[in-house]
């Protein structure tokens, strides 16, 4: 039996080692070398790429990314909670509703982000409608600012918040709610003192699932932010493209990874196995 199990696990292990650890190792090696004049990496080996990370300029960009990702995560959870609650209490329509939540994944993220550009631009759907209704007389500058980026991120990662919250709310013991009601709790009190504390693990899971991709986002800030604000993902991307500084780009992405791992570790330690 043991041998059979090893045999079946072999592909997964090979996959992980070859396609995950392999590239990671390359990034680590790159991060310790020197930038080639037009991309690539050359000798000598150096730690300079890591000392450069201490430059306040990059700290500012990292901080910005945290704020943007944090705001997007809060937005996602606030929107996802009622939705997840609604789905969890929808009886036979649950599967249909869950599939609808997943529906956007059938289209490429890039295409969906472009769709947002068409919604938000001056001659876009939203501005045209507001103009036609006479609510505004000049188009609002909806596109190319931080709000547009946050809207795009919230939209993009909302399903990642709905799903863990749903599975948490779904498993919620109904008798606890009944008990609360029997003991005289008003619906809002039940929500505040029973439902919310019991769904805290779901919220943390949702937060992690949304925050991490938002922190590394580069497409949304680029397209909806109009390249005017830089998040850490854009900085990494720039190193590999315009700046042609692969070693520094590698060091940056490893630093980002380390920060994310630390955050995860801190959260997991708190939640134990509850979150998994």
């Amino acid at each position: 039996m043991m041998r059979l199990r090893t045999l079946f696990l072999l592909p997964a292990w090979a996959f992980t080692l070859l396609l995950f650890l392999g590239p990671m190792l390359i990034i680590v090696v790159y991060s310790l070398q020197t930038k080639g004049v037009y991309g690539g990496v050359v000798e000598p080996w150096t730690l300079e790429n890591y000392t450069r990370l201490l430059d306040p300029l990059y700290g500012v960009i990292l901080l910005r990314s945290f704020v943007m990702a944090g705001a997007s995560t809060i937005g996602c959870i606030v929107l996802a909670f009622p939705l997840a609650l609604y789905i969890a209490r929808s009886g036979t329509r649950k599967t249909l509703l869950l599939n609808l939540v997943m529906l956007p994944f059938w289209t490429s993220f890039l295409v969906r982000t472009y769709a947002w550009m068409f919604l938000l631009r001056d001659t876009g759907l939203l501005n045209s409608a507001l103009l036609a209704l006479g609510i505004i007389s000049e188009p609002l500058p909806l596109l190319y600012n931080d709000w547009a980026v946050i809207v795009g991120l919230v939209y993009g990662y909302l399903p990642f918040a709905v799903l863990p919250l749903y599975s948490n709310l779904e498993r919620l013991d109904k008798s606890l709610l009944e008990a609360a009601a029997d003991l005289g709790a008003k619906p809002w009190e039940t929500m505040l003192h029973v439902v919310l504390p019991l769904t805290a693990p779901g919220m943390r899971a949702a937060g992690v699932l949304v925050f991490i991709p938002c922190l590394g986002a580069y497409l949304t800030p680029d397209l909806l932010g109009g390249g005017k604000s830089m998040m850490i993902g854009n900085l990494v991307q720039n190193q590999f493209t315009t700046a042609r500084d692969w070693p520094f780009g590698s060091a940056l992405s490893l630093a980002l990874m380390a920060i994310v791992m630390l955050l995860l570790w801190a959260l997991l330690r708190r939640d134990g196995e509850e979150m998994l």
Partner: protein
Amino acid sequence: MRRRALVFSLAGLSCAPALPRLNVFNWSDYVAPETVPGFEKEFGVRVRYSIYESNEEMLARVFSGNSGWDVVFPTHYIVPPMREQGLLVPLDHSKLPNLKNLDPAFARPTLTSHAAPYMWNATGILFHKKMQPPPTSWADLWNPRVAGKITMLDDPAEVLAAALRKLGHSLNSGDPDQLRAAQREAMRQKPLLRAYLNSEVRDQVVAGDVLAAQLWSTTAQQAIDAAPDLDFVYPSEGFPVNLDCAVILRESPRQELAHQWINYLLRPEVSARVADSMRTATANAAAKPLLAPKTRENPTLYPTPEVMARAEWFETMTPAAQRLRDRLWTEIKSG
């Protein structure tokens, strides 16, 4: 869905005829619809043709030395570093008799040893005619009256070029003081900008969302063709010129075929068809008489000699200047 696509592509592999295959990686909108099929038919080969949107994107792919591409199209200032990195083979001029068709202004011997000039463009300002008075200089893109209605290219070399020329410096400047002054200009301009956008700004100028955009002449011309309310100007302070060239990668096992492809592109009639249908500017002098008059006499695609006197070619940066520029750009973007 994905599994079905995989099955189809496997089926395609197994029944494909064993024709020699040339791999061409080019800018988007850079061949006429019949350019590739014409070559395939005449030479009995297949061409795998794919497109990119920036030199960096192309460089990142071919840098490994086993990208699988045979011919790529770097801009002229990318050719020397690619050559120094050993990515290119010298062109065998005996296999490229059509090189003689090139405009001498573009056929610099230092370039043509490894690269065949193909199409060129310059950077200027695409604007909507409802912008009054119409812009004539880079300085007009710093005018607060059009705040929120201007875009610059999302490209450090281009943004710094405009700022440097505005200040009266060479756009290739590597001087730290001049570059810092240019950066200050760019940061002063940033609040006035709607965004930093490349070709995607086209639709927004057509729609009137953007009144003036720093843009490449060929991209601008495509917008002007679509909307007569638009026009293009080469700024009075001077402007950069870019020449895209065909090069053969050293990794290519199909050197002979690659030369045949380049020589084919250098034919006057092939080059003229590309320039006419894609509305680009050819570096091929022999192709010019074959162009439709509306292309040949177009002031955006083929500016007059007086305008061209203000042009300055982008040059390859020294590593130190490049690094300073990268840092200044990060500061501009994060500021």
